[in-house]
């Protein structure tokens, strides 16, 4: 991309991108910490995640203000406009990721003292590994404006969905085995769902990156495998 005549304009766009990357770093950290807090029953870490969410919210507000001001002042066209709109959208996605991480952290505190079956913990770790890899990849793609990676992330979400479906079934089995498991399994179920939602936000960000680079959103349906809502255990 060529530079603008007014260098302050470039600086404004750069600041936007920098803030988005910063938000990405914070939400990545929050997600990792929240899941570590859940797996290790570390309420101190969980509380830190909850506190971190405020910074993420503040940053999002700043990105929004900056974006609106830039639009008002510079009246951007074409790729600049897309870049600013993209930063607005991605900021929203990342802020939601932070909220979901905060929710997981809250549940980690609630789950303190419950013994979790190691098999389920492995499962939660597995799905969160997949999701964090997706998010990290998509944020790298944002920085390097790499449409190919974004496209890969966009197509790769079905793995997480399949994983979630599998966990969903397993949690149901645990709950049916022993009603005393219900409260802890419900928390875990919501945690798994939150992680799966974070994966969806990663694909949304991937879509936005593709939009920013090409001006069009990929239209054909993504392969979906999340049938948990229709799956019944007999």
């Amino acid at each position: 991309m060529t530079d603008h005549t007014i260098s302050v304009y470039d600086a404004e766009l750069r600041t936007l991108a920098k803030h988005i990357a910063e938000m990405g770093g914070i939400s990545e950290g929050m997600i990792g910490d929240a899941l570590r807090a859940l797996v290790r029953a570390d309420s101190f870490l969980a509380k830190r995640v909850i506190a971190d969410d405020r910074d993420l919210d503040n940053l999002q507000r700043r990105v929004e203000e900056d974006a609106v001001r830039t639009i008002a002042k510079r009246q951007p066209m074409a790729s600049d406009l897309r870049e600013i709109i993209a930063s607005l959208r991605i900021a929203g996605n990342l802020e939601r990721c932070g909220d979901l991480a905060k929710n997981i952290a809250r549940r980690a505190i609630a789950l303190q003292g419950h013994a979790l079956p190691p098999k389920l913990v492995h499962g939660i770790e597995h799905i969160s590994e997949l999701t964090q890899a997706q998010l990290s990849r998509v944020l790298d793609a944002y920085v390097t404006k790499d449409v190919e990676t974004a496209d890969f992330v966009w197509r790769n979400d079905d793995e997480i969905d399949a994983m979630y479906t599998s966990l969903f079934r397993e949690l149901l089995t645990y709950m049916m085995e022993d009603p005393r498991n219900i409260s802890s399994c419900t928390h875990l179920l919501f945690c798994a769902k939150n992680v799966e939602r974070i994966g969806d936000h990663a694909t949304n960000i991937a879509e936005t990156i593709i939009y920013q680079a090409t001006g069009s959103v990929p239209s054909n349906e993504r392969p979906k495998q999340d049938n948990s809502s229709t799956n019944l255990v007999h």
Partner: protein
Amino acid sequence: MPVDTALLDAESENATLLKRLLDHRWVLIVSFGGMLAFWLRGDVTLVAGVLFLLALWASAMVEPVASQRRRRLAVLKTARAVARRSVWPDTSTKRVVSSLSVPSILVDRDGVVRFSNAATKAVLGDIKPGQAMSLHFRQRDLVGALARALETDQPQQLEYTERFPVERWFSVAMNPLRFETEENGSAIEPSRFLLIQFQDLSEQKRTERMRVDFIANASHELRTPLASLSGFVETLLGPARDDETARMRFLKIMREQSQRMSRLIDDLLSLSRIEMKAHLKPTDPVELGSLIAHVTDTLAPLARENNVKLELDVSNQPITVSGAQDEMVQVFSNLVENAIKYGATGELVEITLIKGSVESGPSVSIRDFGPGIASEHVPRLTERFYRADVETSRQKQGTGLGLAIVKHILNRHSARLDIQTEIGNGATFTVGFPKMVEEAAEANGTNADSAENNEEQQ
């Protein structure tokens, strides 16, 4: 020193006004004297007039000399300021940074990357100069430390963990590049660049982690067979002391259990070994065709035992990927062994090797015609100790670690495991290798060369 004093003087505005008047003092004095003479004498002779004009001219000449000096100093000052603000490091700085063996990055006062050495590219990936450091390293602690280092101009040290694609640990040192000349001595001039160095700590951390993980996993999984072993020992010592038939039966079970424990320990150890190396990319060339033929040969007895026919479809052309020979052997023997054990009812296992195209790398698929795997298990098969069917797994002497080992090895090789299965129709496990990169081909070439050399020497 006088140069610096003059610079300091020129900087303040009041001083400039005073200075100007001072510079013009001769003109002022002469004109004042002339006016005084005119006022006192009234009439002026030609000689006096000429003398006055000459004096005025001479005094006026003094001024430009002073102001010229000042102007020169001002230019010098701007040049210095420009030099201080210019964000690109000079060649000698770059040369020094290039020669450092650890990944090192130079950032300017705005936190923008200005130079990075070859080690950075190899270890941390391509970091383009001109982009903000925080774009590439998003993690909060690092961003915070960078901001602190830039603000206070003081060195910072922190630990940085990169989670993807593999977990790596670095000790990061940020040091301002101070430029201390003889001229300004200890006078602190803010540094223009910050040198950020990454020291890889993965090796140490992994060793620590391995111990913790091994104990956590081993203690949990070894408890079951150990409990049954000690149970039988108790029984043999107590109630079944003189029961001949029970003793034989119990001893057989105990043998099975102890074998299971040793298998578990073997698998856990090899998993740990692979995890230790997770951050190192394997580079040796491995020829897949002969490797797979070797694997099927070793597993032929097991196949015969299970009444399974192994069918191999390997092209004659050699297909080479970069990898570690013994780890690749482990991947394919685990996969083929699984196919034989769990797909025995199909009585056939097909192994197909496909040479890669431009878009995709080479791949190996192992297909069985057994009962298949229910879809809800598929995404989780590579988890440690995850068993789709606990009973069958126990019967077939599985440890629940086979596919976890496969996944870890493939991760290190940047390869993918793809599982296609349908209940009743068997399962296909496909290992997809990354696209052939030119480097790999080059490595091949050099290897072939050295092989030739060896032959010549012989």
